[in-house]
């Protein structure tokens, strides 16, 4: 019998190793797996390369992981946001590297990585600083840059509900990068608000099929970044 549920967030992230590449789902706070990120801070892995659209806000979740000095490099499209202070300070003082990627290119690099596509051409960034030094090729009279697929050792993601097989559905715009990240990681770890029995999710409605998911943790009442930031919480 397949049952991918593990006891808690600590067990789910226990084997994340120093220097790992970790994709973290979410666009701002929507879809951010805060409890898994906090468990990763407690676990202690360092020298991580983290892939996320942003760099977190306040001193919780992703921003707390960065503040704890565990992230060597961020791959993202928009590293400054409202209440985002940790990353800018560490970036300016040279404590963290940044690979800035246009948002659609980031999504497609992850999708390609998960789909076994090593590289692709895109018109995005041609003629701009972010296209500099990239291989150019012309198709039908238009220039495109070569971009490489992106994979990860682990993905930390958040869903609304899952069954023991790892089929997942999401809440509204919390879906964002998560389904493609689930496909691109060797080990995908999902925290969900509710766990349901096999067969309870409508097969027509499943967004992430269980083959892409390896561990499930139930977090019944997930925290929201904006609420924690408003309370002045600083993790740990």
């Amino acid at each position, binding site marked *: 019998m397949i049952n991918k549920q593990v006891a808690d967030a600590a067990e789910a992230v226990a084997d994340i190793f120093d220097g790992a590449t970790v994709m973290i789902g979410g*666009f701002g706070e929507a879809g951010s797996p805060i409890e898994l990120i906090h468990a990763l801070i407690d676990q202690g892995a360092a020298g991580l390369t983290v892939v996320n659209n942003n760099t977190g806000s306040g001193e919780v979740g992703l921003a707390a992981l960065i503040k704890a000095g565990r992230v060597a490099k961020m791959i993202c499209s928009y590293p400054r946001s409202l209440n985002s202070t940790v990353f800018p300070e560490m970036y300016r003082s040279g404590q963290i590297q940044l690979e800035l990627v246009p*948002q659609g290119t980031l999504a497609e690099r992850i999708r390609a990585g998960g789909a076994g596509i090593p590289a692709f051409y*895109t018109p995005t960034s041609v*003629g701009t600083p972010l296209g500099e030094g990239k291989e150019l090729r012309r198709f039908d009279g238009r220039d495109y840059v070569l971009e490489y697929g992106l994979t990860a050792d682990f993905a930390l993601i958040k869903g609304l509900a899952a069954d023991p097989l790892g089929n997942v559905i999401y809440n509204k715009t919390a*879906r964002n990068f998560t389904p493609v990240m689930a496909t691109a990681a060797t080990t995908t770890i999902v925290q969900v608000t509710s766990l349901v029995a096999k067969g309870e999710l409508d097969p027509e409605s499943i967004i992430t099929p269980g083959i892409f998911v390896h561990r499930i943790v139930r977090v019944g009442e997930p925290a929201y970044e904006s609420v924690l930031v408003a309370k002045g919480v600083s993790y740990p």
Partner: protein
Amino acid sequence: MNTVTSKIGLTREQMAQRVALDIPDGSYVNLGIGIPELVTRFVPEGRELIYHTENGLLGMGPSPETGMGDPELINAGKRQVTALPGAAYFHQADSFAMIRGGHLDLCVLGALQVSEKGDIANWSTGAPDAIPAVGGAMDLVAGVKSIYVITQHCTKHGRPKLVAECTYPLTGLAVIDRIYTDLAVIDITPRGFQLVELSPGVSFDYVRERTGARLLPIEEDQRMAGYE
């Protein structure tokens, strides 16, 4: 006489209203943050536009009533929004397939500079201490069928934003179709900036003096056609 100098040209709201007039019924539209967001308020009665937000929603509606929102239903500016009847959620790769694949009809963006060739700079001033952040801007200008810029004609310091060559880091090359400013509506053509319309009370010379490249006047036959 009072001491308040009367403002020449359109307000932000009037600029948004002017753009809204030009968006056909049934268009799929992505609006940038700032003045572009105001466009939704001025869509003429009887037209239905479908708003796209790149973080995964078609059919985006206005902000929720206070306390009625969901922190996981947000727009690309990370503000809470609503989903209208008929809305659809999707993931980021599908969202950018809509953008890059040319499925969206129109994107309305702000700009730091636009060149007479249609190049746009709108993501970075290139300042050495700035944290570089691009988001989806480069994908939008590369992929959406029509790109309109809505911007003040000049910077706060009075420098032209419509220029011969952008000096700020580029977002995209030769991608802009039309510019709506407080002073005028201007098309990008193979011959450069082509005036389409002057804001009420604004003269051609006034706009030309504030434009950083050659501005082609409205041809007489076009002007007449405009009044018919």
